């Protein structure tokens, strides 16, 4: 079996092809491509992926305009039905702006765009996205963002930590994120937003250039969750 996944492309998305490639390489099935102006998603989806990039040129706030696009109404409805949603980088920003995930992504504390491979600590191994990792394991995934500084009030942060919803943390301070949070899960564990790019760390042939294949297990975890379902 494969994975029936849709990758949403907004104007200004630039990691949509990488995301589709990662999904196809791991699942063996081409991902469906969906334009932001579409009102409806393909039916019977196993996964919706919101890719990285600079949707709408980051106008107003990163992800704010994309969160209002027609397809996001369908994505929110699908998420409410329990369809898994993965948002990476700008996709994470869109998910917070759409209120599918708590908090917000602010400008990096150091003001600079950060583009490097980051060490992450895995904080949750129970979700369909993270089951393939070991608890407390350190993995290496590329980051490339200007607005990755995760913010939420203390109460929300305590709740995320108490409920095991911090999927990934930066192993060392990266962008000023509250409690070094790099990725968070929704209350039902079926929506994951993360600033690092797992889709850029999947190819054994590109380890030298891209720093590893630790992102591959995230996609394998998603696939395995459907194989065992």
């Amino acid at each position, binding site marked *: 079996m494969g994975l029936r996944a849709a990758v949403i492309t907004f104007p200004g998305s630039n990691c949509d092809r990488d995301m589709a490639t990662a999904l196809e390489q791991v699942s063996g099935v081409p991902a469906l491509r969906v334009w932001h102006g579409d009102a409806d998603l393909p039916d019977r989806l196993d996964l919706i992926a919101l890719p990285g990039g600079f949707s709408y040129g980051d106008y107003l706030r990163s992800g704010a305009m994309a969160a*209002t696009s027609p397809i996001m109404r369908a994505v929110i409805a699908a998420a409410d039905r329990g369809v898994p949603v993965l948002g990476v980088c700008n996709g994470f920003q869109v998910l917070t702006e759409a209120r599918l995930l708590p*908090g*917000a992504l602010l*400008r*990096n504390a150091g003001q600079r765009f950060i583009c490097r491979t980051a060490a992450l600590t895995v904080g949750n191994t129970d979700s369909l996205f993270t089951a393939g990792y070991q608890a407390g394991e350190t993995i290496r995934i590329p980051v490339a963002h200007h607005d990755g500084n995760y*913010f939420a009030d203390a109460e929300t942060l305590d709740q995320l930590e108490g409920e095991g919803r911090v999927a990934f943390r930066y192993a060392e301070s990266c962008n000023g994120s509250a409690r070094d949070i790099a990725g968070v899960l929704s209350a039902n564990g079926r929506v994951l937003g993360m600033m690092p790019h797992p889709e850029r760390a999947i190819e054994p042939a590109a380890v030298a250039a891209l720093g590893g294949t630790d992102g591959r297990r995230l996609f394998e975890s998603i696939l395995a969750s459907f194989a065992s379902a």
Partner: protein
Amino acid sequence: MQVRVLVRLKPGVLDPQGRAVHHALEGMGFAGVEDVRIGRLIELDVADGTDYATITAMCEKLLANTVIESFSIEFVGVAEGAK
């Protein structure tokens, strides 16, 4: 009808842009600047009679992210009682 919406980062939310401008002002020799916070002014030209609740809804749903930002609304040239 003109409406001005002023969107500001909430107190306690880090404003690295404001901090950088603060440093720049100090570097230029301007003394006595205690803090700099940068917000956003949005000018709307809306139909006469558009009410406060509608503008508030625009702010809450798009113009501001209330997780990190507060907003204030000013009806330009409209007497206080006429809102």
